[in-house]
């Protein structure tokens, strides 16, 4: 393919009367490829956040490789202290830093480009970004200095350096400022009538993510501030049960921000890669609404074998409402591929039941990444998540490797793969730079997904034999009482290692072309070259 996919034009807004933007003169450009109006201030911040996101992804990825090489029992690479240190580092860089920086970039893009408005405040954007960046750098420094080997969860009364908590508070407040800036941008778009009717579906999804983010960050402040005050000996130790309850309001819910953002990215990439349209606005929007109303209850799944929360509380939170959130994912899991099918059939790929699927642009990493994300998240992530959230099954899964086995299919195979796929459009459209090494880019989603799936399956099976997560030695060398696992766990831990290597190669296949493109790529003047 040498020209832009014709389908991209199909994805464009079809408003009869073009609404006026509200940009100051010279502060916006019209994208030659998509026709969207890009606010130049927002563009700068999208770039800043995206670059930082990729840096933290790479840092977290290096830690991931070293951890996987340690869990692979035949290799057992790191000493115990560095294993625990890098596990803490990996969790926070991946789940907090990479994802939050990327999400703020997505929020700024969705609000300004899709609503044809300027960014509400450059000052707020700077404030949020600086807070996040200072917090992130401090956080990583404190962990690598060995002052805070407490895991991402930092369960009190396990105590980290005060700056560990303070830097997380900085990142959270910085993100919150970005979210407020996003809401303000949506508000001025409505006030200035830069769009007509209801916001586009992708913006609706972004608003969903932002609303859940506010609730999430509220929980974060609710637990991190008292914990910080305890670490500087102003307050007594937080109650460990209360800590777990409130912390998971942050810890699990932040992953629901990812889900909402990821589903929005699915709709976005479906539209720009194959021209997918929304089958039923009401259905898709109601599904997003279900996330806001019910997803917070999934936080309860972390407490299913805890003391102090009653059986009634556990049953309540594992049944009715949690399934309404599952329903939301089941709906998106239908509407997104169905929209792709309808679009491809309309383009003439109408042979048989799955002819459209064969004709899909599998060589376009923006499409393949998005579709693989959908499949891995929906099948592996969804099935393992619902299973582990069962009151009784949780007894045989709690704190075993089955848990990271689950969330590596959701957050890595799902969210990270989708965000990588998005980058194959962000770099040419926002940075206006051409990707080098295009053959590597085309293969990247497949290699990365393959690695993540092998890793996650290895983790899940090892966990089902009882192998603990966050644990350095499956042989229990030097323990008072001997303990060991079924010998077959070594095969599964080997899968963790090999899957980890393949996923890391897939990560480099993403990071290296992206970094080269952003800093040295050929400048794109007109339309972006088609994938």
């Amino acid at each position, binding site marked *: 393919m040498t020209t832009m996919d014709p389908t991209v034009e199909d994805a464009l807004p079809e408003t009869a009367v073009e609404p006026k933007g509200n940009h100051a003169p010279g502060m916006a450009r019209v994208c030659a490829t998509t026709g969207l109006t890009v606010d130049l201030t927002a563009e700068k911040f999208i770039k800043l956040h995206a670059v930082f996101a990729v840096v933290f992804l790479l840092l977290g990825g290096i830690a991931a490789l070293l951890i996987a090489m340690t869990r692979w029992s035949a290799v057992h690479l790191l000493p115990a202290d560095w294993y*625990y240190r890098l596990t803490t580092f990996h969790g926070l860089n991946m789940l907090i830093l990479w994802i939050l920086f990327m999400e703020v970039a997505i929020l700024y893009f969705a609000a300004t480009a899709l609503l044809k408005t300027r960014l509400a405040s450059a000052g707020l954007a700077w404030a949020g970004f600086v807070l996040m960046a200072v917090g992130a750098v401090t956080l990583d420094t404190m962990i690598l200095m060995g002052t805070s080997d407490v895991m991402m969860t930092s369960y009190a009364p*396990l105590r980290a350096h005060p700056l560990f908590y303070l830097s997380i508070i900085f990142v959270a407040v910085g993100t919150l400022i970005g979210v407020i800036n996003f809401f303000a941008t949506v508000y001025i778009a409505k006030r200035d009538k830069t*769009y007509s009717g209801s916001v*586009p579906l992708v913006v609706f999804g972004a608003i969903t993510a932002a609303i859940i983010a506010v609730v999430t960050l509220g929980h974060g402040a609710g637990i991190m501030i008292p914990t910080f005050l305890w670490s500087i000996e102003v307050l007594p130790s937080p109650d*460990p049960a209360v800590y*777990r309850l409130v912390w998971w309001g942050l810890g699990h819910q932040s992953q629901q921000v990812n889900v909402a953002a990821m589903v929005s990215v699915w709709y976005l990439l479906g539209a720009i890669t194959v021209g997918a*349209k929304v089958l039923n606005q009401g259905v898709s929007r109601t599904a997003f609404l279900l996330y806001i109303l019910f997803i917070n209850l999934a936080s309860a799944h972390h407490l299913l074998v805890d003391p102090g929360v009653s059986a009634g509380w556990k049953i309540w939170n594992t049944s009715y409402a949690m399934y309404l959130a599952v329903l939301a994912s089941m709906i998106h899991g239908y509407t997104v591929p169905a929209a792709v099918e309808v679009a491809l059939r309309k383009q003439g790929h109408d042979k048989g039941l799955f002819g459209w699927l064969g004709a899909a642009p599998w060589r376009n990493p923006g499409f393949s990444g998005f579709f693989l994300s959908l499949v891995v998240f929906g099948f592996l992530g969804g099935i393992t998540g619902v299973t582990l959230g069962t009151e009784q099954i949780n007894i045989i899964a*709690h704190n*075993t490797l089955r848990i990271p086995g689950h969330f590596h299919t959701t957050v890595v195979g799902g969210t990270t793969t989708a965000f990588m796929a998005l980058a194959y459009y962000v770099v040419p459209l926002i940075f206006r730079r051409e990707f080098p090494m295009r053959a590597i880019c085309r293969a990247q989603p497949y290699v990365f997904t393959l690695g993540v799936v092998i890793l996650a399956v290895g983790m899940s099976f090892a966990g089902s034999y009882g192998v*603990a997560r966050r644990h350095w030695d499956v042989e229990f060398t030097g323990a008072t009482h001997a303990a060991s696992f079924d010998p077959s766990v070594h095969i599964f831990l080997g899968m963790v290692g090999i899957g980890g290597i393949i996923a890391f190669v897939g990560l480099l296949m993403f990071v290296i072309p992206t970094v080269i493109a952003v800093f040295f790529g050929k400048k794109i003047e007109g339309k972006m070259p088609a994938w």
Partner: protein
Amino acid sequence: MESPLASVAPNWLKAPTGTERAWIGLALLWCVVLTLAMPYWHFKGKQNSTGEAYTVEPAKFAARVQQFVESNKVGEQNGVPIVEPAPGGDAYMQAQMWTFYPILQLKKGQTYRIHLSSLDLQHGWSVMPINMNFQILPGYDHVLTITPTTAGEFPVICNEFCGIGHHQMTGKIIVTE
């Protein structure tokens, strides 16, 4: 149909039709079935986490454990007392960086109330090879009502990170015929 990137007329709320409607119906039905399965299995199934717990100061819990050990000790292994509680009675196991104390010796088919708590950090109580996992928190006496159904030795491992010696933290339960 509109692009997901385009704003839409406000009257977008329309009932789903065709296969989309059928799919939502099926998914909803499945959700209802699972919703009902949760409480059903709690009463029908034999293994639940009831979360029964009482607040307890770590020092007081340690004293109870010591008293339990002194009155029921039947032996020693690796320097750790083996303690056999009265059938149907209370048993105590304390978690502390990085040991479980003492070794419990239980009789198959008898029901016990096992009290778990920690003197310092959060710990995990993971019984191998049956792979049953419960959380231990300082300040909480977590009571598990259990009936061993198989004789043998069951290592207990810690599966909540508790510092640099975490991977050496083990304990033991012995079940006799």
